[in-house]
């Protein structure tokens, strides 16, 4: 375990920002930290990065306590905050070289590392541009490169995909997967669940400052999820589903059968345990003469888990 958090609490005045979080993030895996705005994700990451002292509980980063062994923990941690600035007048290369120096690298090494990282985050052509002219997405990538300067064992990323275009999101996913494959521990916080679905191995849900659930995404898949099935003739689909005795929910129509704006016409939501069951449903429906148009998972695993957790809280 390279990130281990047990019973951590932190308050600001009367506000209990983090109120009992347990978390384990393992090396070689990407762990998603999921929760609504204000759930305490950023405060938790500040404590993990060694900036805030927890009121209670214990944190270990690669075995080091960020409070009592601050330097050892910091030397192994790369932190990318959700909102961060850059020195506008410095070029992208200078920013990275400065951080190399700040981690004690001699100039030649810092220069080499900066060149390497600029290529990694596709900013080589902007190496000599002042950071002020970079776009939001480019700054975000520079921030990620900055967090990687000292080749940290543990990466803490707070909303790293915010402001990234689809291409950059894919690149980010590939990069983080590659870092995990190298054996690094990657903790990514976000509330954009679809982007985490394909990225994360594990997920920790926090809400109201508490960790509510820690899941392995594979395990979540095993439980099955909601699928959306659409047919040309909704009536034919629902009649056939009813005849098979399946539980389903008709979309795009109110209880009296009139259309509802904003939802696909003639689709149903149905719980399917796994892909094999989905394939069987397609085969049976087609052979029963139902004019199927599409069948696909409705939302990601994380989104569904997240929403179900929200349900439980109500």
């Amino acid at each position, binding site marked *: 375990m390279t990130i281990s958090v047990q019973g951590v609490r932190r308050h*600001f005045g009367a506000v209990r920002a983090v109120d009992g979080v347990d978390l384990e993030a393992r090396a070689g895996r990407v762990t998603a930290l999921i929760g609504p705005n204000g759930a305490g994700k950023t405060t938790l990451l*500040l*404590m993990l*990065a*060694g*900036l*805030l*002292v927890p009121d209670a509980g214990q944190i270990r980063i690669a075995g080091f306590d*960020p*409070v009592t*062994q*601050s*330097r*050892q923990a*910091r*030397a192994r*941690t790369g*932190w990318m*905050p959700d*909102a*961060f*600035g*850059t*020195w*506008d*007048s*410095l070029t992208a290369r*200078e920013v990275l070289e*400065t*951080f190399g*120096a*700040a*981690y*004690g*690298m001699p100039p030649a*090494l810092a220069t*080499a*590392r900066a060149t*390497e990282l600029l*290529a*990694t*985050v*596709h900013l080589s052509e902007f190496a000599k541009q*002042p950071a002020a002219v970079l776009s939001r997405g480019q700054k975000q*990538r520079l921030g990620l490169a*900055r967090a990687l300067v*000292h*080749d940290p064992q543990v990466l803490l990323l707070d909303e790293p995909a915010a402001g990234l275009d689809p291409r*950059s999101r894919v*690149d*980010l996913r*590939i*990069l983080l997967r*590659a*870092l995990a494959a*190298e054996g690094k521990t990657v903790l990514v916080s976000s509330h954009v669940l679809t982007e985490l679905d394909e990225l994360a191995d594990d997920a920790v849900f926090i809400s109201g400052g508490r960790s509510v659930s820690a899941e392995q995404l594979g395990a979540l898949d095993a439980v099955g999820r909601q699928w959306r099935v659409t047919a040309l003739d909704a009536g034919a689909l629902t009649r056939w589903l009813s005849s098979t005795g399946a539980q389903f929910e008709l979309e795009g129509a109110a209880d009296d059968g009139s259309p509802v704006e904003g939802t696909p016409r003639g689709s149903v939501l149905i719980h399917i345990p796994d892909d094999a069951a989905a394939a069987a449903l397609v085969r049976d429906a087609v052979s029963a003469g139902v004019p199927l148009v599409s069948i696909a998972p409705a939302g990601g695993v994380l989104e569904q888990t997240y929403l179900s957790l929200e349900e439980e809280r109500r």
Partner: protein
Amino acid sequence: MSTVTENPTPAPEDPVKERGAWSLSWHGVSTVARLELRQRLRSTKWYIGLAVFFVIVGVVTLLTLLTMNASSVGDVPPELEGGAGRVVFDVVVFFVLLLGVLVAPTLSSSAINGDRKEGTLAILQVTLLTPAEIAIGKVLAAWAAALAFLVVSLPFLLVGIVEGRLSIAAVLVTIGLLAFVLAVVVTLGLGFSSLVPKTSSSAVLTYLGVASLTVITLIIFGLSLALTITPTKVQVWGVPSEVESSWDWSKDENPSFQCEWYESEWDQPHTERTWWLLAINPFVIVADAMPADQPAEEEFYIPEGVMSVIRYAVREARMGPELYSDQCYYGNQPMPAPPRDRDDSPVWPWGIGGLTLLGAGALVLAVRRLSIPVGKLPRGTRIA
């Protein structure tokens, strides 16, 4: 981001050692200082400020020269020419000091809270730099910027050297003290910028600090003068009044009094209790450190030039009231030299000591505020 390079740069080979908040390395300090200077110099039109500074000091120097020459039209004894030159030098030095302490706060009073607002402080704090390296690096950068203003005004100080016939050593000491005062002011600015979250507040506090050192303490000294006046026993060399009044003046208008020591009680201002208010004044420090324009041992010493007056006054203030008074007006009976307890040694080392303490206090505050992890978060402050 599609590929990750095969050979990631190896982490620093030796295991990271725990270092205290005050642990310093030149590598760390210079990293921060270079970062600050680059960011500062490229983002602001600093050279315009320097040019304006140069022109203003030049104009003032020229005007002072013209004024002094105009007022000494006619036969100026050669021995007074030096004095006039001293005045030019004094005015230029004080003017540079004035502008310096006005400019210096802007160079550092947003160094910490401004970075916090910009989101560039926390990402530096989590690196292996120590809080002291960050604080001192920022002070060095701000000081270097302040020194640029001093360098720009050097040509005019040279005019003072030529005109005032000053020794190189005296001028070097003056320049050194100006640089020292600027260092203290930028450190105060850094301290305040670590103390309050708003950059405008820290700028105001820094200016108040500068005003306190230069003007407010002076005003307090002046206003408290009356409060220090207390009846004081003074040894008088003269004829006691009862002896004087017992003399029958109608018989003899030339009494044969013998002057003697007697004790009397006079109301005297005790500035020896409040002189330190003046000692920490940067203008006093600079003035007091200048060599005297005339040997002070001379009996009727009349200080010339602004600095000499200040120097004379502050040393008098420190000595407090004269406890021996020559009131003997009868015949040639000189006052026996009183026991030498008057200490007119320089005041400026005390001032330097006081300012050093202030600067050190500000630096300690800044380092404490930069230390992570943060336990109790000051109101209104955010970390990142």
